[in-house]
């Protein structure tokens, strides 16, 4: 068991645990902070996958911006203490969801096991690196891909953000 493996199992366990806490938590602020933790774990997992740029972006954008927005909303609506009526749903709904959820995971894991392409080995990484761009996951490689092959989607995304911004302002503005 080398360092990467240790890191993976540690982070995976923590990610699952915090995600469960997010979903089951009673206090939205607590849920949110657990989600931040979960995103940190995911960023860590990205690092084990050599996707450093995305790891940084994950924290910068997700944890640093999007979730802060959530936190703002929770605080401004004063939902922090949790509402009494907003706990977990009734037993039948829960049971149905849990059952289908379990089935879903089972199916997915089953599929994944069947469709395993190849284990990631050092030799393979090297081959991939040589075949692909300078280093898969480096900022440079992603930048090149974004501005060469994905230029149109990239520009469209910027438009999407603008539209979202305008929409958010219009929606949240107090009506006069």
């Amino acid at each position, binding site marked *: 068991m080398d360092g990467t493996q240790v890191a993976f199992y540690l982070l995976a366990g923590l990610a699952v645990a915090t995600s469960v806490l997010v979903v089951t938590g009673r206090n939205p602020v607590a849920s949110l902070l657990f989600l931040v933790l979960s995103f940190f774990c995911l960023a860590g997992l990205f690092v084990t996958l050599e996707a450093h740029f995305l790891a940084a972006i994950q*924290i910068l954008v997700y944890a640093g911006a999007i979730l*802060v927005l959530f936190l703002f909303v929770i605080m401004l609506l004063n939902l922090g203490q949790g509402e009494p009526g907003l706990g977990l749903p009734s037993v039948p709904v829960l049971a149905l969801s849990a059952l289908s959820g379990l089935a879903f995971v089972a199916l997915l894991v089953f599929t994944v096991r069947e469709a395993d392409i190849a284990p990631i080995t050092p030799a393979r990484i090297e081959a991939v690196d040589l075949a692909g761009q300078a280093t898969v996951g480096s900022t440079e490689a992603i930048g090149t891909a974004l501005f060469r092959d994905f230029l149109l989607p990239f520009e469209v995304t910027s438009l999407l953000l603008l539209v979202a911004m305008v929409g958010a302002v219009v929606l949240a503005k107090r009506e006069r």
Partner: protein
Amino acid sequence: MDGTGLAISLAKAGFVAFLLLNAVPLLVWLERRGAAFIQDRIGPNRTSIAGFALAGLVQPLADVVKFMFKEDFVPPSANRTFYLLAPIITLIPALMTFAVVPFADVVRIGERLVQMQVADLNVGILYVFAIASLGVYGVVLAGWASNNKYSFLGSVRASAQMISYELSMGLSVLGLVMVFGTLQLDDMVRAQGARLFGVLPLWGIVLQPLGFLLFVISVFAETNRLPFDLAESEAELVVGYHTEYSSMKFATFFMAEYIAMTTGAALIVSLFLGGWQVPFVSSETLNGWTADLLGPGAGSWLAALIQFGSFSAKLGFFLWLFIWVRWTLPRFRYDQLMRLGWKVMLPLALANLLVTAAVLLVIDGAAGR
């Protein structure tokens, strides 16, 4: 990573942590004495140990003791968990950011070349912004968990301010990133060893004067220092988000602010003032001299020490600048702050980026790319 490597890493991390935590009392001392001298006062000079007051340097120690032994008070209406968590969440990102700042050139230990930097991440500066963006959590939680309207207002202000100025901070550095073509701080510092026309050190401030100005202003805003300390404006908000904090929890906020200041200054130095580069003496030359003097191993240590001295001197200057500005400029009004951030800094940063890109394009074109 083998045992030695781990040990070296731990040693570096320990060194940096030691440095940062010890910088706090020093800065407190500098701030109080500096303020006093600027205002024609004397400043703390009373506390002494066995008669040695050390020009007031003992005062921070006394403060520490006081913070530790004061009553640890939690307001009854506060949300206890988050109230306790907030100062810690504020402190950790402040401490973590320094990890990517290089403070000297490589040092030779036996056969091993050791990077004088806690973590050499290939996303370097991006990591700084990522971690810095988390600082807002502590502030928001502190204000909200205190359940005090002044705290809450302070935290809302502070977070809006931090988010707003994060943009111009990031954008102002991007120009430099484009010039150097790397995100790694140590590469940037190394690149700044070059000279312009063989005379002027090719520091970031020479390449990106506007970027430098914007970055410095943004760092002031990010660290909530005057003239941007709206979040704690004593007169209106009774010090804002940490109104309800006392004793060691307050001290934690205090430490976080000063560490953030140190980190900010270290970033300014590394990005725009050549980091550990000794002006006019390239790293190779310096290493050559010291190696002649002491041999390659010990020589690299001496060189690193000199470079660390250079780094510290620049760092010290900027820390002093923080203090100096604080006792010179008055506080902004909130609308002025937002206007400056969004309508002046951001467009300027964008323009700077555009111009830099255009110039780089022309230079690349002229170089016959």
